[in-house]
């Protein structure tokens, strides 16, 4: 475009300023060879057709002002021809002179019009009208054409100015958009880089998760085996608790029987003790009576004393038996409480075994589900790892594309900046043309 409006270059002028019409385009007729140079006028003796022919050829070559000496023609016919040649040449010379004057006037008018147009264009003043002093009607189309050219140029300039303004605005917007795009691309590249790094970490984490899931699956399997063993142990424990409870009931019955026997023994001992006490009392009174009898009752007193000693031995024995019975009662009571405790504990053990069995059953179910879930997790994490690797690969490609886009965006920003400068330059140039 700029080349089309290179105003520094002056338009080609059809001819040089002040050029003469006589130096115009070559004659339509081809020039005669150099050998046919104008012939010298023949002497007046014996002039004939050759002189006439020679004169016509010179006229034909553009040489005017030739005058044949009529008197030199003896032949009247040739003399008339010579006179006609002279008249024709005079007429041609006169017409030529008039034509040259006319051509010069037209040429000057053209020069004036072209110079005026060039001056307006060079000055950039397209608002002024083309004022010419030329009045030749032949130049009217040319002046009208120049006016149309100026109008067209003015319209073009106006449109170019508007276009330059719009171009400047658009270039500024493009520059802003390109700058924004460049920063967005840079931010995008940074985000993609971070995302790529994160995906790399995620890939490592997926790998770790897959290994852990595999480990969890193995542990869950081991736990499942252990829980099944625990289930069997709990069943055995429940059976043992049932046996313990049965045995505790039997022990309780035995203790009850023992307690009744001991109570019976206590009753018997009480009777024995009462008898011993009575015997002791009788022995005391016997001794008392013996003492009262004096020497006569001495032997009686000795027997009474011996009886009393036996009675005291019996009471001492019954006392020991009572202590033993008391200890047996306490032991029996403790055994009864222990047996009751055993029964209670056995019952609680059975309940606990039942609860534990339910728990273990739940645990078994949970572990089975955990094992299944761990396997699923392992499979899923393997798929995730594969997908993550693909994502990482894709992210790397995106990062490369984004890097290229960033470079392109940077170039676009530079181009937009350059375009903005050019638009401003164009606007400045267009401003030099005054159209209003």
């Amino acid at each position, binding site marked *: 475009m700029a080349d089309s409006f290179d105003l520094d270059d002056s338009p080609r002028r059809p001819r040089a300023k002040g050029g003469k019409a006589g130096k115009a385009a070559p004659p339509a007729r081809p020039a005669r060879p150099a050998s046919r140079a104008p012939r010298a006028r023949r002497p007046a003796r014996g002039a004939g057709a050759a002189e006439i022919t020679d004169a016509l050829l010179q006229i034909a070559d553009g040489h005017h002002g030739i005058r044949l000496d009529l008197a030199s023609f003896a032949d009247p016919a040739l003399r008339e021809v010579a006179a006609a040649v002279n008249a024709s040449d005079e007429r041609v010379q006169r017409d030529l002179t008039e034509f040259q004057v006319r051509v010069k006037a037209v040429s000057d008018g053209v020069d004036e019009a072209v110079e005026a147009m060039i001056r307006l264009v060079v000055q950039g003043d397209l608002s002024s009208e083309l004022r010419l002093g030329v009045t030749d009607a032949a130049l009217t189309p040319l002046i009208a054409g120049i006016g149309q050219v100026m109008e067209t140029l003015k319209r073009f300039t106006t449109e170019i100015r508007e276009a330059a303004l719009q171009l400047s605005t658009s270039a500024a917007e493009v520059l802003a958009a390109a700058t924004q795009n460049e920063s967005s691309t840079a931010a995008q590249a940074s985000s993609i880089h971070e995302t790529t790094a994160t995906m790399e970490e995620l890939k490592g984490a997926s790998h770790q998760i897959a290994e852990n899931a595999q480990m969890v699956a193995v542990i869950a399997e081991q736990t499942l085996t252990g829980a099944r063993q625990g289930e069997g142990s709990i069943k055995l424990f429940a059976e043992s608790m049932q046996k313990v409870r049965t045995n505790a009931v039997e022990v309780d019955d035995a203790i009850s029987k023992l307690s009744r026997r001991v109570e019976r023994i206590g009753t018997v001992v009480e009777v024995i003790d009462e008898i011993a*006490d*009575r015997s002791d*009392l009788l022995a*005391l*009174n016997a*001794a*008392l009576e*013996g*003492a*009262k009898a*004096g020497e006569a009752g001495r032997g009686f*007193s000795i027997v009474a*004393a011996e009886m*009393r000693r036996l009675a005291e031995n019996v009471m001492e024995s019954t006392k020991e038996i009572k202590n033993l019975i008391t200890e047996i009662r306490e032991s029996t009571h403790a055994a009864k409480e222990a047996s009751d405790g055993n029964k209670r504990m056995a019952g609680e053990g059975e309940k606990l075994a039942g609860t534990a069995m339910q728990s273990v059953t739940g645990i078994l179910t949970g572990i089975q589900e955990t094992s299944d879930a761990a396997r699923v997790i392992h499979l899923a994490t393997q798929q995730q790892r594969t997908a993550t690797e693909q994502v990482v690969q894709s992210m790397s490609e995106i990062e490369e594309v984004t890097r290229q886009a960033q470079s392109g965006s940077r170039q676009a920003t530079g181009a937009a900046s350059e375009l903005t400068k050019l638009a401003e330059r164009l606007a400045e140039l267009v401003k030099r043309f005054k159209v209003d």
Partner: protein
Amino acid sequence: MTQPLAELLVFQVGARVFAAAVQDVVRIGSVRDVPPEELVEGTSLGSTLGRERGIVVSDHQLGTEATLVVDQVLGVRSVPEGEVHPLPAFAAAVLRTAAVAGFVMLDEAPTLLVDLLTLIRERRAAAAA
């Protein structure tokens, strides 16, 4: 030459051991066989612990019997009369009861010799007052 012997009934009230002449004792019985109103306890000999035995004493003036509650009757002991001593004047002046007639050496330990009838009468008099 054989020294005459004194026949003594040895009994225990609380932690202390006393002695009394067998002639003052009618018999020895069980406390639970005697009606409560005939039992005599809380005398100047002290309080009983086990209340196992009762020493039956006859008051010839009143023609009644009373049962002195003791914890234990330890037996009948024959001791030489030389081992039986009257209560020293100083001790008689200090003691608040007249039921202690003297003391006797039993197993080389002085044991108070109690007049059971006087003891029962003092207790009954105190109860009546």
